[in-house]
């Protein structure tokens, strides 16, 4: 076989493709540029941070991203709506069910069938979305523990997440990228016995969450490391468009599950935890982590209520077909539509412009929550210590797959 050159080496390629945003000639003598990432374990993926430091004090942080860019928006202009769902999975690959739920709901609203969806389908959707929310928060909390130096919670949470992954694998056949929630329905009904296994899991999980609260959240070392660090004031958070646990940790009770009341969330009873600044200032890293742990408890509550409904009022019947309402042709009318839903990391929005004549969208724009949440990083890392940068970045819970799309 002929050996062809696949890559022409040139020493300038690296600097040309992603040049420094800082003008090095204008730096003062004591300042220097430090590069962190893209291969760095605590950047949670492939994020490159260009850090201007003065000794140990950070003067400026400039994030460079795009290393995981997979052209979702370009693909979306070539594919029918239903075939886009696997692509949606791969954006936030730790919370694929939630993204699918947001996407499917948006298309259903455009088609005008959102009120015809059977209640059982809605309850299953909420059930799996909350299970996935738990899994996503477990990764967020666990890897944050790693970032600030506690190893045990990570192992414990990965162990518990494994149960969740297996439950969802039993359900859909895949561990992380499910393609389970379809437009107008679901791929399958729940497997026989899933409800009982889920109940077992919840009963197993509750003491583990209490343990987690003891070993991590109320651990003195953890508090010392995270309280009063990376304070995100509420006005700054809103101006930067922050959403999800980061916004709630800054003290605003704002959750789209309650504000928009989509799916069956209005019928469910759950609280919205907010940051109160118990260990320091409102909106610090400790608050953000604490809000995530409290949200795990709320998700457990939601899962339990869904299971009661799925075993009682909306229980499985022989003639139930989860694909009954799946449209043969997904062809919304000509319109612009913005659909949004609460993902574990914040508000995930899809903006669609349809053509009205094809079942391929004219344009899809994703309002990625992690993209927006990361944009606040330069603003809250001014004049902090270099070690705290890791703590602040980890507490924002970013997911590079969704930032780069």
């Amino acid at each position: 076989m002929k050996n062809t050159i696949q890559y022409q080496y040139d020493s300038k390629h690296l600097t040309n493709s992603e040049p420094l945003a800082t003008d090095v000639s204008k730096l003062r003598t004591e300042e220097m540029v430090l590069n962190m990432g893209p291969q760095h374990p605590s950047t949670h993926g492939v994020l490159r941070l260009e850090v201007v430091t003065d000794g140990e004090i950070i003067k400026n942080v400039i994030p460079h991203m795009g290393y995981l860019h997979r052209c979702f928006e370009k693909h979306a202009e070539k594919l029918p709506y239903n075939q886009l769902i696997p692509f949606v999975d791969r954006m936030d690959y730790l919370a694929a069910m939630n993204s699918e739920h947001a996407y499917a709901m948006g298309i259903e609203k455009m088609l005008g069938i959102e009120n015809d969806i059977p209640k059982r389908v809605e309850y299953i959707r909420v059930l799996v979305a909350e299970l996935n929310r738990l899994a996503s928060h477990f990764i967020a909390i666990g890897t944050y523990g790693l970032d600030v130096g506690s190893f045990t919670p990570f192992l414990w949470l990965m162990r518990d997440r494994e149960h969740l992954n297996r439950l969802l694998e039993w359900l859909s056949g895949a561990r992380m990228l499910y393609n389970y929630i379809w437009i107008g329905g679901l791929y399958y009904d729940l497997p026989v016995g899933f409800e009982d296994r889920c109940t077992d899991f919840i009963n197993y999980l509750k003491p583990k969450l209490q343990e987690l609260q003891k070993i991590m959240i109320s651990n003195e070392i953890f508090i010392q490391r995270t309280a009063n660090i990376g304070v995100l004031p509420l006005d700054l958070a809103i101006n930067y468009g922050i959403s999800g646990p980061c916004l709630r940790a800054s003290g605003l009770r704002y959750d789209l599950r309650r504000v928009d009341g989509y799916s069956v969330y209005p019928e469910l009873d759950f609280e919205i935890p907010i940051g109160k600044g118990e260990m320091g200032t409102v909106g610090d890293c400790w608050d953000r982590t604490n809000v995530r742990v409290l949200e795990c408890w709320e998700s457990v509550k939601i899962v339990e209520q869904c299971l009661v409904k799925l075993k009682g009022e909306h229980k499985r019947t022989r003639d139930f077909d989860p694909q009954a309402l799946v449209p043969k042709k997904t062809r919304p009318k000509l319109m612009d539509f913005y659909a949004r839903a609460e993902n574990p990391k914040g508000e995930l929005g899809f903006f669609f412009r349809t053509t009205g004549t094809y079942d391929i969208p004219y344009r899809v724009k994703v309002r990625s929550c992690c993209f927006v949440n990361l944009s606040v990083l330069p603003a809250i890392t001014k004049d902090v210590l270099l070690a705290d940068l890791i703590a602040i970045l980890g507490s924002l819970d970013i997911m590079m797959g969704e930032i780069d799309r």
Partner: protein
Amino acid sequence: MQFLEIKSLLIEKFGEGIVLSENSFYTQSQLQISPEKIVEVCFFLRDTDQLYFDYMTCLTGMDNGPEKKTMEVLYHLYSIPYNHSIVLRVETNRENPEVPTISNIWRTADWHEREAYDMFGIKFTNHPDLRRILLPADWEGFPLRKDYLEQEYYHGIKVKY
């Protein structure tokens, strides 16, 4: 506050000519504003007490194709305390697309505008740091334009597979 009230407040402040056109899809209504006026309108929408649009949800760039010869920017604004929203739409030409930045009003617009510049080549004037954000800096062309053709080689790597 309803869409019609927001619109009448805008007309009261800026005169009849401010709204170039309007579209309604379900509850999501759009107002077309001229690019020269967008900054003033955004300041007004944010700073008026009855409106209080404190949250910019999304900023979308859009190419209408070589036939229509226009590009669009859509602003999705939302007010957290009042729970109302509005969509503003700005149209610009395709040869030299320029829209003033609103990143001094909502800081979140900064990265959204960089993304729109990256994908469509829409220049946001007065933007503090208009660089490519997702693609490499030496990438050629703007990929989400409807007539985009990818370059043949990038650093000696064949682009089209």
